[in-house]
């Protein structure tokens, strides 16, 4: 009973945060709504007995990724976004897509309502179990994912380093004289 109440409570906070994310016009308000969504999702994981996943959800998503979002919004000083009417394709394809998806999910859930269920906390949730799954049963997919992330990081580095800056740095190391415009320039780090 308590579980159901808490589930509904955090679930409605989560949905409210998601709606607010779309409604708010200032990027920072939207980003903070996303933080609320992430945090309430973590609470839902906690209710399922997956404490480790909940903690990681907060540390990685709410604590690291969203801080970077907020950081970038602050850095660029992004203003209020403009409202567009929305594309016709989005309306024509999106609304039927959402309806079909919702119907499918509801139908599947109702159809399998009396299928086997698992008690709360019965699924592996302890760090030891998750570590065993990650580093034993699913080692290859796990490592492949990490390489994927590494490739993404390399791509970001390549995109972020402007060719002229690289050329200037080469020049600088060859002549061993610091170029005056580079001293203390914040973008070099």
């Amino acid at each position, binding site marked *: 009973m308590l579980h159901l109440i808490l589930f509904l409570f955090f679930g409605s906070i989560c949905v409210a945060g998601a709606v607010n994310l779309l409604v708010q016009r200032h990027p*920072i308000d939207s980003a*903070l709504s996303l*933080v609320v969504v992430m*945090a309430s999702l973590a609470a839902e994981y906690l209710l399922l007995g997956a*404490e*480790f996943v909940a*903690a*990681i959800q*907060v*540390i990685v998503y*709410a*604590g*690291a990724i969203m*801080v*970077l979002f*907020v*950081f970038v*919004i*602050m*850095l660029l*000083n992004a203003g209020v976004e403009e409202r567009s009417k929305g594309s016709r394709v989005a309306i024509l394809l999106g609304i039927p897509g959402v309806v079909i998806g919702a119907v499918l999910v509801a139908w599947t859930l109702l159809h399998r309502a009396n299928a086997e269920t698992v008690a709360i906390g019965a699924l592996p949730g*302890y*760090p030891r179990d998750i570590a065993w799954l990650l580093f034993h049963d699913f080692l290859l997919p796990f490592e492949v994912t990490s390489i994927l992330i590494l490739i993404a990081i390399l791509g970001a580095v390549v995109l972020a380093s402007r060719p002229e800056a690289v050329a200037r740095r080469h020049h600088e190391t060859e002549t061993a004289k610091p170029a005056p415009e580079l001293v*203390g320039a914040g973008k070099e*780090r």
Partner: protein
Amino acid sequence: MSITTFVIISIIKSVAVIFILLTAVAYSVWLERKVSAHIQNRWGPTRVGPFGLLQPLADGIKFIFKEDLTQPHVYKPLYILAPILAVVFAITSISVVPFGNLMEIPEINVGHWFTIGPIETPFQITDLNIGLLVILGITSMGVYGVALAGWSSNSKYSLLGGLRASAQMISYEVSLGLSLVGVLILTGSFSLRDIVMAQQHLHWNIFLQPVAFFTYLISAYAETNRTPFDLPEAESELVAGYHTEYSAMKFAMFFMAEYANMVTVACLATLLFFGGWMGPVLGPPLLRMVLPIVWFCLKVFFFMFLYVWVRWTLPRFRYDQLMAFGWKVLLPVAMANVVVTALIVAWRA
């Protein structure tokens, strides 16, 4: 233990811990002023009470009665939310810190109709099996308080302070987290109580993981924005950084958050590397119950003193030095420590 007893005990423990934490925060400020004064050959606060001991109380009253200015150019919802976030996250993270061993209350009969106990409960609000991760999670959320304060104040100094703070805290959180991995590999548990129990008989992690300890200490200084890493509020260049536009109680909340974070970080250093509440325990049962807490408090006090000592000894880094040190020195050292520890543990297994 019935649910009613559990709720009552939890409430009592929470109130007691928050009260003690806030008192500790107030007296760390006093300690800071006193020690800094003596380092600089001054007296520090002497007027209010003996040795100026009532100074924190006087300061608190002053903060309450100051005018709470809200500049017209601020973004009000976040301007008000930011100090609340900062102080809430700073105080919450103490909830999983164990202060001592078990507290055993024998059966007490109050009159003929009411019985208390016997109760056996840890000196800790709650013992989670992911306690360390909870602290890391809450500390990482604490960045929002600082970042939003800087942004919503809508002034140059605040924004620069907020940007610096968030960049610095994200950077040093990585090496902070990695420095803890060595301890976790040795203990095999995220529970702070298990980590302390693994350090019995002076098998303190400081002797097993000295590199991790110093990495942790340095990153913790950066995480709490203390000198030599206090770039976010560098008063000689940014007025006061992210809290430039705050006054009265809102400013005091940032101040409290900073010192509460210091206390948490000092508690964590004690628990992870200095054996927590472990120490010589003797005497009657009551003394046996209290002595561990005394050892714990003494160790935390030592770290608080170290904080102040470092602040008034070292000058501030330059910002590029700070970033270069974090990413190019501290992070590789922390990573190497993890790899070496893992190899040794695997080799001995």
